[in-house]
């Protein structure tokens, strides 16, 4: 626990000092929203944005998270600090959880900034189908999976040449089930079609199951992957 806290605290202190990840992720997310706004500006008044809003939101989250995930391991690698971490008597899963929770915190901070912006850009004045309190659940489940699986894949790609390309190529196909579940759950709340509660819980359960399986796999594989 002491080692886990140390890794997490170090990542948070460094990020608060440099603001590299939060600035790049936040700016990127806002730019994506601006591009969406431009792309949808000519869609006309009959176009129902609620039907695609969840997809747009999750696309923004997925692409934004890629930026942060890449940076989280690259700054360890740059100064050989990853070796220093590996030389310490720390169980590898502790490193995994330290980095993953750090990534989850940074992603959550960005989501807290981006979500209100997304609402004002695209959803303001539109009647939501379901209650607002249901919205955070798919976001939490999705973000946990992104941070967990993303940390594992970022560790795999950090030692490769062309890591900026390798991470998305690995990440997006692996994330597909979670992305599908998160979009389905979020859409269910936003649109509120008949039976949306059942669809919502099915999707959230699918996402949570994916998180459990993938994080367990990451826990088991991390020693092998980080030492490779």
């Amino acid at each position, binding site marked *: 626990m*002491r*080692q886990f*806290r*140390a*890794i997490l*605290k*170090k990542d948070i*202190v*460094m990020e608060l*000092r*440099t603001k590299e990840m939060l600035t790049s992720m936040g700016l990127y997310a806002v730019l994506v929203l601006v591009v969406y706004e431009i792309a949808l500006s000519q869609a006309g008044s009959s176009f129902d944005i609620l039907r695609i809003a969840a997809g747009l939101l999750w696309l923004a989250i997925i692409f934004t998270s890629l930026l942060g995930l890449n940076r989280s391991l690259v700054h360890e690698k740059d*100064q*050989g*600090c990853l*070796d*220093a*971490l*590996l*030389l*310490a*008597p*720390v*169980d590898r899963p502790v490193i995994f959880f330290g980095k993953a929770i750090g990534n989850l915190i940074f992603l959550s901070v960005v989501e807290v900034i981006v979500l209100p912006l997304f609402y004002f850009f695209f959803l303001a004045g539109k009647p939501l189908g379901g209650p607002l309190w249901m919205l955070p659940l798919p976001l939490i489940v999705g973000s946990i999976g992104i941070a967990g699986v993303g940390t594992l894949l970022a560790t795999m790609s950090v030692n490769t040449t062309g890591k900026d390309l390798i991470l998305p190529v690995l990440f997006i196909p692996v994330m597909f089930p979670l992305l599908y579940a998160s979009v389905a759950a979020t859409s269910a709340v936003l649109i509120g079609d008949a039976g949306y509660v059942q669809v919502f819980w099915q999707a959230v359960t699918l996402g949570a199951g994916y998180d459990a399986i993938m994080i367990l796999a990451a826990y088991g594989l991390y020693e092998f992957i980080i*030492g490779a």
Partner: protein
Amino acid sequence: MTDTQATDLALEVRDLSRTFGARKALDGVSFELPRGAFLSIFGPNGAGKTTMLKVLSTLTSPAKGTAKVMGLDVVADAVELRERIGFISHNPLLYPDLTAEENLQFFAELYCLDEPEKRIKELLQAVELDHRRLDAVRTFSRGMTQRLSIARSLLHKPDVIFLDEPYSGLDPHAMDILDSLIAQVRDQHTFVMISHDLQKGLELCSHALILAKGKVVLFEEKEDIDPDVFADTYRRTVGMGVS
């Protein structure tokens, strides 16, 4: 070999091999080093020196053979072994955005040290960086960073210290400081150092090893070394190139 002999050894390397694709970085390396010794490892670029240090320090696993450091197997006892080794590289292995003190605090937590503040203060004084303890490492000169790197590697009082070209990139003054720091702790640790500087390596060592193409070309105690023969062997191995 008896158990008593085994405990007297800092390193026991048996038929150690490591491959990267088709290339053999280490090819059947065997040697023993007593505790308290200072081993200098020489060889051309690509000879397998850094790979050997990485295997001995548990950063990478051997493909074949065994290696024990202080009687602990580098694969089976890796976590326990990491508590007993320190590593100084030409890379500082420090976080540039953290202060000197924060870096040492972080590593003290990773090594679960008791009373880390006392040890950190002691080490910062030893490496003459206590006046810069609150400054970010990125503002340090190369020599200062290397001194802090030494403090990091000594935090947990390791038995064996691995040095991967520690003098690389240092100016003469910083080299003198590093010399005196090593001299201060020389009696308390076993050292294994990779060096391209024949004179410096031989000056510090009690044992010398020349590695080429992943194989041991020469391994001798310092008192048995004829400097001319050694220098000639070294020159020939440098000409052998990489494995």
